[in-house]
Each structure stands twice: as C-alpha cells, then as structure tokens.
C-alpha cells in the first residue's frame, strides 16, 4: 500500500514536470477534439452544386428544376446546354452531379407514359452520391404524387382513387438512433475513445522510455512489482478520469452529441476501458527503450484502431481471424459498448459481452504489465 502511494506520487512528480508528457497527457487531450471536429462541424452535407440539362423546357421540367434547387441537399448552379458540357464541369469539380430531363418529359407524362430522369452523381465521394440520390428520389416521388393526383381528378375512376392514394405495400423506415444522420455525432465519439487509448499508450511509453534513458532516477531497483504497477495505474487513471469527464460530460454537451447513458452507466463502460488501456500501456512500455519510440510506433496506428473497431466498416465484413485479433485493442469493445449505451440507449445487459472482454483485457494486461516490469527491473540490474 505504501509502495502504491509512493509510486503514485512519484509518477505525478515526473508527469507534471515534463513538457513532453504534459503535451501528450494534457495539451493533446484538450486541443485535439476541438481541432478534429472542425471539418465535420456542419454535420450534414448541404447545398451540393448540381447541373441540370433541361432538354424539355416545359412547365413540368421547370418545376423539377425548381424543386431540385429548393431541397436542402442540392443547389442548381449551372444549366449547361448538353451532356458533354455538363460532364466537363463535373470533371472539373464545378458540380457534383448532373440531372438530365429528357426532351419528351412532359409529353410522356401527359400521355400517361412513364418519364425517366437520369441522374449522374460523383461517386468518388460516397457522401455526395448518397445525398444527391436521396434528394432526387424524394423529388421524383413527390412530383409523381402530384401528377397522379392531377390524373385522378381528370380520370375520376373509382378504383384509381382507392389505389393510387397509397401503394398496395409501402415501407415506413424509421431511423432508431442519430435520426439526422449527422456525421460528427457518428464519428467523433469513436475518435474520442481512440484518442484516450492512444495518448495513454504514447504517454506511458514515453515515461518508461525516459526512465530507460536515465535509469538511476526513476527505476525502482527492487520492491513490490504489483505495488508499483498499481501506483502508476492510480496516477494515470486519476488523470484520465478527469479527461473522460471533459470529453463525455463537457464536450458532449457542448457539441450536442446524443447522450443517453447516465454517469453511472458511462462509468461502468469507461472504467474497464481505461483500465485495460492503462495496463496495456504498461505491458508494452518496456519495449520503448527510448523516449520518442512510443510516439513513432503508436501515433500512426490510430487510424487502424478506428477502422477495425467495426462501426464504420461493418464487423461482419472483416475476416473473422482479424476481427478476433482486433478485440485485443480495448478500443474495439470500448467503442462498440460506448456507442450502444451512450448513443443508442442500450443498458448494460445489452453490452455484457463488451464488458466481459474489457475486464478480461484489464486482467490479462495487468498480469502482463507486472511481468514486463519485472523483466525491466531484471534487465537493468
């Protein structure tokens, strides 16, 4: 116990007097979330520039152009005369989509034939493609409905009135969570979790690297290995609990990200997540014989941790052996569990699997951390 408190205090002493560590443990945590949110801060892609090639110039085609311009997702920025010119503009990135209204558009509709509107959208950017498609399908449906109602009035057929008001079988799609499909609310919570994990790994690695460079000052010659690991854990955990409060109670409110879980539930997932990361950090720290190595090794892997977590790219599509390996990173279960309880409002029983893995990792990495520290002491003496 004495060993724990002494180590705890000593770690504080090192961390708070080392500019490099303050940068990783505090400055990065403070600035990084504010910085990475910038590109996504509008949440939704609006007013995508599109070109309309109107070959019909009729009342209906003009109505379609007006409706396109009026939707939130699109803005008609050019009306080229032909498709070739429209293609050139799209290649030059002046527009992101082309809508072609055929020359017999109105005539077909008036003759009770089906009219086809071709939409070409830039699928080098999936978000643009999806927004244009969703917008145009919506416009097609509402214009179709208007036309059908006009026709019904003209025809006055009883069966048409009954049938055309609604399709025989329709689908009502209800988004369960993140209803607006906001991009920041979707991505940032995961980025924050990865940031907690990665800064812990880098910081702890840097601490041990520094100790390796100057063995006399910071390395306990002998003594209680478990006590040292726990003391260090106490120091890091106390700092990261403050960070978690900053991220998930202050920033979440500031950015209005969905927040379904209460503080207790959040703690139940964040505690094993942070513990697992802290022990993992200590387990691998002895590999970093020099101060800068952890930065070099851990920082580039953040993107990988994010894509392997199974929330942006579906877990079902990742080969199962790799999926299994990915659970060795606390971020994989941490992000999934956090998403479910905090963003989707699941309760702890729905994420029992994630919690089990995280506690398992914490226990396993604790043992590894002790072994690794013992090896480190042996190597130096």
């Amino acid at each position, binding site marked *: 116990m004495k060993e724990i408190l002494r180590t705890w205090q000593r770690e504080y002493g090192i961390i708070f007097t080392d500019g490099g560590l303050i940068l990783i443990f505090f400055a990065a945590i403070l600035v990084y979330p504010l910085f990475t949110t910038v590109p996504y801060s509008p949440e939704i892609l609006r007013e995508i520039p599109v070109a309309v090639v109107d070959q019909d110039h009729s009342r209906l085609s003009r109505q379609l152009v007006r409706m396109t311009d009026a939707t939130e997702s699109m803005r008609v920025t050019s009306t080229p005369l032909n498709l070739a010119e429209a293609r050139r503009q799209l290649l030059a990135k002046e527009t992101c989509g082309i809508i072609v209204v055929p020359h017999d558009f109105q005539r077909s509709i008036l003759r009770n*034939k089906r009219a086809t509107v071709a939409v070409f959208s830039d699928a080098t*950017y*999936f978000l*643009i493609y999806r927004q244009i498609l969703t917008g*145009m399908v919506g416009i097609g449906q509402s214009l179709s409905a208007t036309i059908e109602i006009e026709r019904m009035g003209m025809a006055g057929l009883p069966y048409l009135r009954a049938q055309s008001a609604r399709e*025989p*079988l329709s689908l009502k799609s209800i988004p369960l969570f993140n209803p607006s499909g906001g991009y920041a609310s979707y991505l940032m919570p995961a980025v924050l979790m990865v940031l907690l994990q990665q800064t812990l790994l880098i910081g702890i690695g840097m601490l041990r690297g520094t100790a390796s460079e100057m063995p006399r000052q910071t390395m306990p010659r002998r003594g209680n290995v478990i006590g040292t690991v726990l003391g260090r854990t106490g120091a890091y955990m106390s700092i990261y609990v403050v960070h978690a409060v900053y991220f998930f109670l202050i920033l979440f409110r500031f950015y209005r990200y969905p927040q379904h879980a209460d503080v207790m539930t959040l703690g139940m997932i964040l505690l094993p997540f942070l513990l697992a990361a802290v022990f993992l950090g200590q387990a691998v720290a002895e590999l970093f014989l020099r101060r800068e190595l952890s930065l070099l090794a851990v920082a580039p892997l953040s*993107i990988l941790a994010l894509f392997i977590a199974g929330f942006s790219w579906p877990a079902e599509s990742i080969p199962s052996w*790799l999926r299994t390996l990915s659970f060795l990173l606390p971020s994989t279960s941490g992000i999934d569990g956090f998403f479910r309880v905090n963003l989707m409002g699941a309760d702890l029983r729905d994420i029992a699997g994630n919690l089990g893995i995280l506690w398992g990792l914490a226990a396993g990495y604790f043992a590894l951390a002790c072994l690794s520290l013992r090896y480190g002491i042996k190597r130096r003496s």
Partner: protein
Amino acid sequence: MKTSMAREEQKTKRGFITVLVRESGRIASNPLYAIFTFVVPLAVFALLCTIFHEGVPRELPLLVYDADQSSFSRQLIRMLDASSTIRVVPAPSGIEEGRRLVLSGRGYAFIVIPENLEENILTGRPSEVIEYYNNQFLLPASLVDRDVKKAVATLSGGVELRLRQKYGETREAALAHLQPILIDSHALFNPQLNYVYFLVNTLLPTMLQIFILMVSVYALGIELKDGTAGEWFDAAGGNTLKAVAGKLLPHTLCFLCIGFFMNTLLFRFLGVPLRGSIVIIMLSTALLVCAYQSLALFFVAVTANMRLALSFSAFYAAPAFAFVGITFPTIGMPLAGKIWGSLLPLSHYLSILVDQSLRGAPVSMSLPSIAVLTAFALIPSAAVMWRFKKLMTVNTYWGRS
C-alpha cells in the same frame, strides 16, 4: 603546397557522398529505420487490404419479425434474403425482442411484417411494413435500408401491376401509373460503390505520409538529440545543403520503393481502375515523399527538439484524413477546415490520385496540384535552411529530449 593539396582533397571527399554513405550506414545499423520504413507500413497496408477486402459489404444481418406467417410474407422474406447485402435473421417473439437485438448489435435493422398482410393485399387494402434501422451505424444501415426499400417496392409494384391489369389497363399504362417519374441513378466513376476504390485507395497514401514524416523527423532529430549533428555537418564539409540532401536521399529512395509498391498494389492487385496517367501518379508519389521530408526538416528546425517535432508531426499527419475531403467532402467543410486541408500535401496528392485513377481526368487538370506539391517540397525546407545550419553548429541545441 602539398598540405594544402591534401586538405583540398579531403574537402572534396567530405561532402554529399560522405553524408550519403554515413546515413546508409546509420540506416543499416539501426533496425528502427527498417521497421518504420518497411515492416510497419507494409503490415498496415496488408491490414487495410484485409479489412476492406470485400469491397462491398455483404450478408449484413437484418432482423425480421413476421407476424403474418403467410405465403406472401414468406415471399417478401425470400426476396430480402436474395439480396447479396442482406442476411435475414428471424426474430420470432416480437417487436420488443427485435429492438433488444438491434441494441445489442445482432442486426443493423429490424422489420415488422404486420398481421393480416396477405389478406389485406388480396382484398386491395394498402398495408405497411415498418423498418427500424440503426442510423448510428451509418454505412451498413444505409445499405440494408436501400435493399429493403428495393424489395418492398418490387413486391408492391408486382401487386399493383396485377391489380391494374385485372381492371383492363395495358401493362405500359399500368407501369406509368405506378410511378410516373422514374429516377434512373448512375454512380459515376465507381458504379459498384466499391470501398476498395474509395477508401483503400486513399487510406494507403494517408498511412504512408505519416511514416514518411515521422521517420524523416526521427532521422534528422536524432542527430540533435544524440549530439552527433556536428559530426554530420563536418562530414558534409560544412555545407548545409549537402548535409541535408545526403541525409535525406537514402530515405527518399526507401520511401519511393514503398510508394511505387503501393501504386502497384492498388492498380495491379486490388484492381483500382486506372483511367488517367500512371506517369502523373508516380510523379506525384515522388513529390509526396519530398514534400513530407521538406516538412520534416521544417518541424525539426522550428522546434529544435526531436520529441517536440515528432509530437507536432503526429498532430499534423495523424488526423489528416479528416481534412482531405474524402469521407466528408471539402464542399461541406467550414472555411477553417478547407484552409487546414489545403495546408496538407496529402489533400493535393489524393486529389491527383483520384482524378488520375477513378475519374480519368485530363492531365491538365492535375497540373495545379502538382505545382502545389512541388512548392511543398521546396518552400518549407528552403525557408529553414539558415536556421538548420545554426542547429548543426551550435551545440546548445543538442541533447534536448
């Protein structure tokens, strides 16, 4: 006379080649360089290729609660299951169970087929299938939703068509009534919406730039930290330009190998369409390497501290993907995001890459971005050259960690 000749001879010996040889020796004797130039980047490439190997997600679980249990509802389920995107998972005990299963991650969406569906359809009463989809998992949910919509619309169209034909309408007129306006959508440049072309194509260079920057910063900064900068400067015969060029060239060549391998991997083995100029892509890859090396010199010179420079590099390069406008396009970003994105060589490189691979744009369209990459390769390093000389010669800058 003789001694001055010897000195002259020594001076010519010391210079670019000496530094080049010295650095090659350093690279060979420190396994870190091999690890972070070859082993880790290639492993990361392999992992990214493995993660996204399907290209288009398949067999995503969709929970179905069938309250009707009729031949019609089974027909709908068969149609859903036939989609390559969807794998139907029955949720037999109702809506509450379906919700739970979505929450615990057993399905990306949950559909409820109402009671008496078949009876309603046969008697001409409109019916509704309800789908709850998990929008927090944006990508898989939207794929499942798209195919559910398609299946329901097809089924509904078939029913209506039969109904109208029964009332004596021609097939064509009936079709026109179903939906007078049809939206015929074309996904340009990537018709299958393949994630290998979209993400792997852009993520590999993103990973590469992190390693170029960090390894170059390490190679330059370690001389300051270890206090060997003076010896390095002497080896160059006191010429800053020769010292820097000789030092960085071996790394340039190593990263060029990786970069060209990356392009081969993308276009040969992963089948990313190459509709533009491979020469322009290769040239840009070379410029990308030089641009990040130039920035490495800049960061080391400005901070005069390797670890601080590495921290800056991590801050600069690791979140770059958020700003390059691939997943969240540049047109949607606020001004600050656009400005920061334009300060990253990666953004310009990816714009060339996408233009010359998927989009098949004319070469002339990529020239401005090539000019910007060249500027990145020249300006930051030129700007700090005088300061770097000071770092190499004044030993108070050495030994900082």
